[in-house]
C-alpha cells in the first residue's frame, strides 16, 4: 500500500470516481453545492483511511455512503438551526428521507451522463474563468482543494473561497441538475472547451522548470477532455481540443533546458518529442477533419501536427502552416493569429513580407503595446540581418513580458546578437 507505485493508481481511481459519486449524491439530495462539499469530505476521508485500512471492496459504494452520511448530517443540523431560529415545531424535512435510498443508489448502475451534467454546470457562463477552472478541477476532476491551490500557487483558504463563491453563483442562477437541452448544449460547448483548454495551457505554460510536486494540470486537462469526448462523440471540436493538447504536450520536455531556460521550436531536440502523443493526436485530428465542420481547435491542432511531423526544423512544411493560418484567420480573425501568420509568411516569403504583415498591428489596441509583437519583430529583424533593430525589439519584449523564463530568454537573445553584431550572417540575404 505504501510503495509509490500503488499510491498513484489509488489516487487516480479516486479521481475517476469523484464525479460519479457526486452525480449520485447531488441528484439524490437535489443540492449540488452541499453535495460537492460532502463528496470532497468523503474523498479526504478516503485519502486518510484507505492507505491504512486498505481499499474497500466497492470503493464507489464506500464514497457514496460516506458522502450521503455527511449530507444527512448537514441536513439535520440545518433543520435544527432553523428550528432554533423560528421556534417552530414543524419544519419541512426536505431530503432526510433520501437517506433510505442510499443503498438503492449504490446498487444502481452509474449514469455516465452525470459527469457531463457536472462539466456543463462547472463551466457555467456566469462564472469567471478562474472560478470555472477551480470548480471543474474539484467537482469533475476529483482533485482536492489543497492540490488545486498548490497548482495555482495560492493559499488553500483562498482556493476554498473561490470554489465556494463559484457554487453560490451557480445556485443563484438556478440551474437544475440536468443536462442542458441539445440547442443550449451546442451554444455552451465553446465555454466548456475553453475551460478545458485553459486548464491545459495553465499546466503546459507553467511546466518550465516547475517543481515536481506541483500537480500536473496538463495531464488532468487531457484526462478530463478524454472523458468528455467519450460522452459527446458527435462533437468533433472536442476531438480537436484533445488533439491540440496532445500534439502540444508531446514537445513538453524538449522545450526547456536543464536550468529551466526556454528552447525555441527550431532548436529543440526532436528525439525527445513524445511519439505516442503525436501519433494519437494526429489520428484524432485526421478523424475529426474527415467529419467536416472544421473548427478553431482543429486548425490549431493541424498547425501543431505539421510542426510535429518534421524530423528536423528545416523540414517544416511552412507553406502548409501559412495556409492553415490563413484559414484560422478567416474562422477567427484576431491579432494573435496575424502575429503567428507573419512568422509563417516570413519563413515562406522572407522576413520582409513578415514585417509588412505586422504593420497593421501597430494600430490595433489589443496588441500594439504587447510584448509578443516586439518578440516577433525582433525575430524577423534577426532573420533580415538587421541586428541593431532586432536587439532593440528583443529588449522591448523583455521589458514587457510578465514571465520570468521568457524575460531571461529574450534578454539572452539580445545579448547573443549584440556579440554577433560585428559579423552578421543573415539567413535571408
Amino acid at each position: 500500500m505504501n510503495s509509490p507505485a500503488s499510491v498513484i493508481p489509488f489516487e487516480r481511481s479516486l479521481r475517476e470516481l469523484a464525479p460519479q459519486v457526486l452525480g449520485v449524491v447531488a441528484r439524490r439530495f437535489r443540492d449540488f453545492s452541499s453535495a460537492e462539499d460532502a463528496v470532497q469530505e468523503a474523498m479526504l476521508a478516503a485519502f486518510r483511511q484507505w492507505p491504512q485500512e486498505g481499499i474497500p471492496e466497492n470503493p464507489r459504494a464506500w464514497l457514496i455512503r460516506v458522502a450521503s452520511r455527511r449530507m444527512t448530517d448537514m441536513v439535520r443540523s440545518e433543520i435544527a438551526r432553523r428550528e432554533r431560529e423560528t421556534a417552530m415545531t414543524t419544519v419541512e424535512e426536505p431530503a432526510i428521507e433520501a437517506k433510505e435510498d442510499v443503498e438503492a443508489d449504490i446498487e444502481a448502475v452509474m449514469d455516465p451522463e452525470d459527469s457531463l451534467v457536472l462539466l456543463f454546470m462547472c463551466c457555467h457562463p456566469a462564472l469567471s474563468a478562474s472560478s470555472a477552472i477551480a470548480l471543474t478541477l474539484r467537482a469533475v476532476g476529483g482533485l482536492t482543494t489543497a492540490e488545486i491551490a498548490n497548482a495555482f500557487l495560492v493559499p488553500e483558504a483562498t482556493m476554498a473561497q473561490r470554489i465556494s463563491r463559484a457554487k453560490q453563483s451557480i445556485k443563484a442562477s438556478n440551474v437544475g441538475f440536468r443536462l442542458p437541452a441539445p440547442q443550449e448544449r451546442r451554444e455552451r460547448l465553446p465555454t466548456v472547451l475553453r475551460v478545458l483548454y485553459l486548464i491545459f495551457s495553465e499546466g503546459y505554460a507553467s511546466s518550465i522548470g516547475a517543481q515536481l510536486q506541483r500537480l500536473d494540470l496538463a495531464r488532468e486537462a487531457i484526462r478530463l477532455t478524454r472523458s468528455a469526448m467519450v460522452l459527446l462523440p458527435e462533437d468533433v471540436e472536442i476531438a480537436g481540443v484533445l488533439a491540440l493538447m496532445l500534439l502540444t504536450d508531446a514537445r513538453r520536455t524538449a522545450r526547456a533546458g536543464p536550468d529551466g531556460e526556454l528552447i525555441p521550436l527550431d532548436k529543440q531536440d526532436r528525439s525527445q518529442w513524445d511519439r505516442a502523443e503525436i501519433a494519437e493526436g494526429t489520428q484524432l485530428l485526421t478523424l475529426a477533419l474527415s467529419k467536416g465542420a472544421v473548427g478553431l481547435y482543429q486548425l490549431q491542432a493541424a498547425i501543431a501536427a505539421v510542426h510535429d511531423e518534421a524530423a528536423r526544423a528545416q523540414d517544416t512544411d511552412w507553406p502548409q502552416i501559412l495556409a492553415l493560418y490563413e484559414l484560422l484567420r478567416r474562422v477567427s480573425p484576431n491579432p494573435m493569429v496575424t502575429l503567428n501568420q507573419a512568422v509563417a509568411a516570413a519563413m515562406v516569403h522572407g522576413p520582409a513580407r513578415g514585417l509588412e504583415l505586422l504593420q497593421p498591428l501597430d494600430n490595433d489596441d489589443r496588441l500594439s503595446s504587447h510584448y509578443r509583437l516586439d518578440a516577433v519583430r525582433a525575430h524577423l529583424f534577426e532573420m533580415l540581418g538587421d541586428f541593431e533593430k532586432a536587439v532593440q525589439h528583443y529588449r522591448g519584449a523583455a521589458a514587457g513580458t510578465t514571465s520570468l523564463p521568457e524575460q531571461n530568454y529574450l534578454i539572452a537573445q539580445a545579448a547573443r546578437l549584440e556579440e554577433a553584431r560585428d559579423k552578421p550572417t543573415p539567413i535571408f540575404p
Partner: protein
Amino acid sequence: MKYILMMNAKKSDFEAYARWSKQDLQANVAFMRSFTKELKDSGVFVASEGLSWPHEAKLVRAGSKGEPITDGVFPESKEFLAGYWIIDVEGPEQAYGIAARLSQGRGTEGRTGSMSVEVRQVLSGHSDLGL
C-alpha cells in the same frame, strides 16, 4: 494573474501617522483588517505583510572583502515600502479596482484617504511564447 499592491510612504508620512488621533488610528486598523478579510472572502488573497517603520532601515552593500557596509542616511524625498498585498485576479482592471479601495482607505477625522498605491504584476513561471 498575480499583482502586488504596494503602499509607499516618506519618512515624514510615517511621523505624521504617529500623530493621528486614537479614533482615526482605530478606524484605520479596522479598515486594514476588513480590507484583507474582503480579499480572503472573495478568493483573491495570496499574501500580505506590513513592514517595520523606516527609522532603522539600512542600505547594505558588500565591501571589497564582501563585508557588509551599511548606510542609513536617506534623502527626505525617499519613499519606503510600508506594506504590501499580493492578489490573484482575472486581470489588471480588477487589480486597479482593489488598489483604489485600498487607496481610499481611512484618512484623518473620519475622511476617506487618497494615498497612492503602486501596482505591479508579479512575474510568472509561465511561457506562452508559442514554443
